[in-house]
């Protein structure tokens, strides 16, 4: 057996071990209507259906007493699975090391939404906590019957239930149910995805009793990666597998009209898969597939270049018809009236470009069709939706599709991973063999769904005494859900568009998340139609903290502009208007840690080429609060910015794992600096021209900040909110405000590339 076959079989064995083969099935399922002992009522030998209302869908006690936690979300590299393991171990009263969190296989977990909106702990963990608490309750009930004692006389330590008064009266979880399944119904809210919630009768522990939650437990997946022992989705290999590559047009929107298959006739196993706009090749080995994709002669339709001319993006957004306008929340007071008779109006407009996920590796997926059943190995952060998308794409029942998440080359939202999964499925069906498809770098950066470009207008009304009496903030841009947040339907994937399903762009944007109080206040957003109605390399979708960085770049820059116009210290001005106590606390914590000196910006005391400044920005995100102080150095001659130091105060309620949280915040800050200083998807009338790391630069190691100081504010009494994205949100504004502090120049367009900064300063 070759090494390649070994890998595939190893993967399959792992899956079986993780799922059905865990437990030996004994006899018939037990009818719920039968009169049973608690032991039998709570446990059975065959697995109940994998539905959200079954405890067995989340928790299993294995024969050796270890715990399997089946999690319908995925860890994208921030150690989420460690935190989930901690929450489960805590509620079950078992050692952390005895819990294995199994993620992302649609055959073993229900759809908890995948990685989405920083809800891994906030919503996914909440459900796992409730399921684990219910499992403990049931196990204690079972022990009570077995030991002939009341349940309230029992306690649990390390998976051993014993009498509080007599530790010798004991029974282990393994003895009670090990190797059989929970047969316990949960109170499911009938929702799937992020909002799925299915508690049992148990109440989770009082946070004051926590001993595992809150600990800095390290990740076990790092050593295997470092020693080349862990496979990525790019490494999945199946017997008989062939390699696929996709072919995209040089003019966006063009479709193949003539394909000369003879141009690749000399390449072993090379085949064309062509269906309407969908065009790919397969070959027996990978290098041949790459060569075939390059050699294939294709004549494309004469598509009209669909995009605005270079440099006209923001004019396009400004002039585009508004498809939907939404005022978020309730307008406070009457903003329009308030602006009519004030002493002074401060106004500004900000611009943010399209940005790419630009994952470390181009997306890859492997699809196999066997006896009418489709299995897809994907790096998508939402494999359950990938399963649904494959079923719709291939027109088969959902039950015949399975998707297995295997760690991919990074994922920061609706990346190219979902598209690759659909392409693999279409190719596999066309050629009747398992197909592994991987995109090129050009396709990864050029054709992934993009974070939307936008403009943001803000104005403030100042009365004669210098008080802000009205504030209005309006974003206008491409929707963040031009294609949906997952590949769950053909309307949202390239394969769907290219095979004839129209894009159905939905409307979604966002407003600043803050607690500034003004007598009159209105926050709104407006969406505009996409530039191309299908198969667009500029289709917009969720990119880490969808529209958060752009909205808060604008809003928190503007708050600074108002403070400067009133000659006030930017922190003092914020604290004067902030109303939420936790918001105030993060702003104070960050500025105190940073040694913030109260004074208005800019600082005006510097001469010479190299100047420095400091800036503050803060934001909320679904319950989490973050304040960031940036200290930057600017070389006025080159325009080069060094974001030298960050101080971050972070409050996400209860902290499950402070070590994982700190690493997550560091990654957010660095990615935020990268997006602020460098990242812009460039395009011409024909297509996206940012197609590699030269044309889509990101932050280099030589530009790494000197330090990121993090203040974690822990609120064990407040249910945990998210941390995967909130701290990327204020980064751009903090840097912009620091540049203003250093130079007195306000830069209102991201990225702050050396050329732009130099121009702005001259």
């Amino acid at each position, binding site marked *: 057996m*070759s*090494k*390649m076959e070994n*890998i595939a079989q190893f993967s399959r064995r792992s899956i079986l071990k993780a799922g059905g083969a865990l437990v030996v099935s004994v006899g018939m399922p037990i009818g719920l209507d039968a009169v049973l002992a608690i032991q039998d009522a709570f446990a059975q030998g065959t697995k109940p259906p994998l539905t959200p209302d079954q405890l067995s869908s989340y928790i299993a006690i294995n024969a050796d007493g270890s715990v399997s936690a089946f999690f319908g979300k995925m860890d*994208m*590299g*921030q*150690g989420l699975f460690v935190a989930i393991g901690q929450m489960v171990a805590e509620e079950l009263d078992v050692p952390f090391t005895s819990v294995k969190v199994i993620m992302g296989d649609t055959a073993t977990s229900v759809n908890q939404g995948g990685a989405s909106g920083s809800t891994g702990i906030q919503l996914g963990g909440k459900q796992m906590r409730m399921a684990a608490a219910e499992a403990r309750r049931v196990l204690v009930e079972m022990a009570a019957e077995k030991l002939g004692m009341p349940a309230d006389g029992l306690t649990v330590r390390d998976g051993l239930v014993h009498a509080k008064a007599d530790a010798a009266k004991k029974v282990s979880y393994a003895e009670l149910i090990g190797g059989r399944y929970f047969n316990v119904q949960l109170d499911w809210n009938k929702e799937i995805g992020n909002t799925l919630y299915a508690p049992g009768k148990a109440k989770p522990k009082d946070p004051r009793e926590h001993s595992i939650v809150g600990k800095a437990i*390290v*990740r076990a*997946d*790092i*050593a295997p*990666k*470092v*020693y*080349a022992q*862990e*496979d*990525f989705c*790019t*490494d999945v290999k199946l017997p008989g597998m062939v390699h696929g590559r996709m072919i995209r047009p040089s003019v966006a929107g063009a479709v193949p009209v003539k394909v000369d298959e003879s141009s690749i006739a000399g390449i072993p196993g090379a085949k064309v898969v062509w269906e309407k706009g969908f065009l790919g090749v397969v070959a027996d*080995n*990978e*290098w041949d597939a790459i060569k075939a994709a390059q050699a294939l002669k294709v004549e494309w339709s004469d598509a009209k270049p669909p995009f605005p001319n270079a440099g006209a993006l923001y004019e396009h957004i400004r002039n585009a018809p508004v498809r939907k306008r939404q005022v978020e929340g309730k307008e406070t007071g009457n903003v329009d009236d308030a602006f009519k008779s004030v002493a002074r109006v401060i106004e500004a407009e900000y611009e943010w470009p399209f940005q790419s996920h*630009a*994952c*470390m*590796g*181009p997306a890859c997926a492997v699809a196999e069709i066997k006896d009418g059943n489709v299995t897809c190995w994907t790096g998508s952060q939402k494999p359950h939706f990938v399963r649904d998308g494959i079923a719709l794409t291939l027109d088969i029942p959902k039950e015949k599709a399975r998707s297995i998440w295997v*760690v*991919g*080359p*990074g*994922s*920061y939202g609706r990346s190219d991973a979902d598209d690759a999964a659909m392409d693999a499925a279409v190719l596999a069906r066309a050629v009747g063999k398992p197909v592994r498809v*991987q995109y*090129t*770098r050009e396709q990864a950066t050029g054709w992934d769904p993009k974070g939307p470009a936008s403009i943001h207008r803000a104005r403030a009304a100042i009365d004669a005494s210098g008080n802000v009496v009205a504030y209005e903030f309006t974003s206008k841009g491409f929707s963040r859900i031009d294609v949906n947040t997952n590949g769950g339907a053909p309307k949202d994937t390239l394969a769907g568009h290219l095979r004839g399903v129209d894009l159905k762009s939905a409307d979604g944007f966002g407003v600043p998340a803050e607690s500034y109080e003004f007598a009159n206040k209105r926050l709104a957003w407006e969406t505009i139609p996409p530039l191309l109605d299908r198969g667009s390399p500029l289709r917009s979708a969720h990119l880490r903290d969808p529209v958060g960085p752009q909205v808060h770049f604008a809003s928190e820059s503007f708050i600074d502009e108002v403070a400067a116009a009133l000659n006030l210290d930017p922190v003092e001005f914020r604290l004067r208007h902030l109303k939420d106590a936790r918001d105030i606390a993060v702003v104070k914590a960050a500025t105190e840690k940073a040694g913030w000196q109260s004074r208005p910006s800019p600082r005006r005391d510097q001469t010479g080429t190299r100047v420095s400044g400091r800036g503050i920005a803060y934001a909320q995100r679904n319950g989490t609060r973050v304040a960031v102080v940036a200290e930057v150095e600017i070389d006025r001659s080159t325009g080069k910015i060094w974001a030298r130091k960050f101080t971050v105060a972070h409050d996400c309620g209860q902290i499950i794992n402070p*070590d994982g949280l700190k*690493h997550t915040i*560091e*990654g*957010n*800050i*660095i*990615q935020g600096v*990268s997006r602020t200083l460098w990242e812009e998807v460039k395009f011409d009338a024909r297509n996206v021209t940012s197609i*590699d*790391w*030269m044309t889509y630069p*990101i*932050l*280099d*190691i*030589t530009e*790494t*900040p000197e330090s*990121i100081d993090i203040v974690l504010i822990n609120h064990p009494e407040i249910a945990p909110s998210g941390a995967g994205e909130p701290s990327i949100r204020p980064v751009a504004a903090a840097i912009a405000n620091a540049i203003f502090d250093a130079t007195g120049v306000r830069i209102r367009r991201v990225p702050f590339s050396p050329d732009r900064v130099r121009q702005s300063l001259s």
Partner: protein
Amino acid sequence: MAQITLHVNGNTHAIDADPDMPLLYALRNNIGLNNPHFGCGLAQCGACTVHIDGEPVRSCITPVSAVGNGKVVTLAGLGTPEKPHPIQQAYVEEQVPQCGYCINGWIMTTAAFLNQKKRPTEAEIKDALSGLKCRCGTHMGILRAVKRAAEMMG
């Protein structure tokens, strides 16, 4: 197609391959070493880095026929949990990676650098690693780990 002999991680492999095929595909598909990774195919990111005779090389643009008698070492051949290279040990201790797809490039480049350069300054470290990509933004951890490894190597 040509018969090509490769010396990888102490083993000798005879493969039948297009001489123009990049070494990356020989390592991944012919020899079954899943590190290195394909990141760009343009020598811009480093995810495919291997050592040839101790020097870091981007295997995605190195034709397999150009390797000759060079001794290739991949991440799998650099060290083991029992006998790690100091940068591997430091990576685990500092809990550096997030998705981990890029670490091949950072570890192999750092290992080659630290094998030659003792007690590097921070500026020298950054300079040696410049151009490598990490999209998750683990830069702070990378630098902590490299400094830790440099200390271990004295």
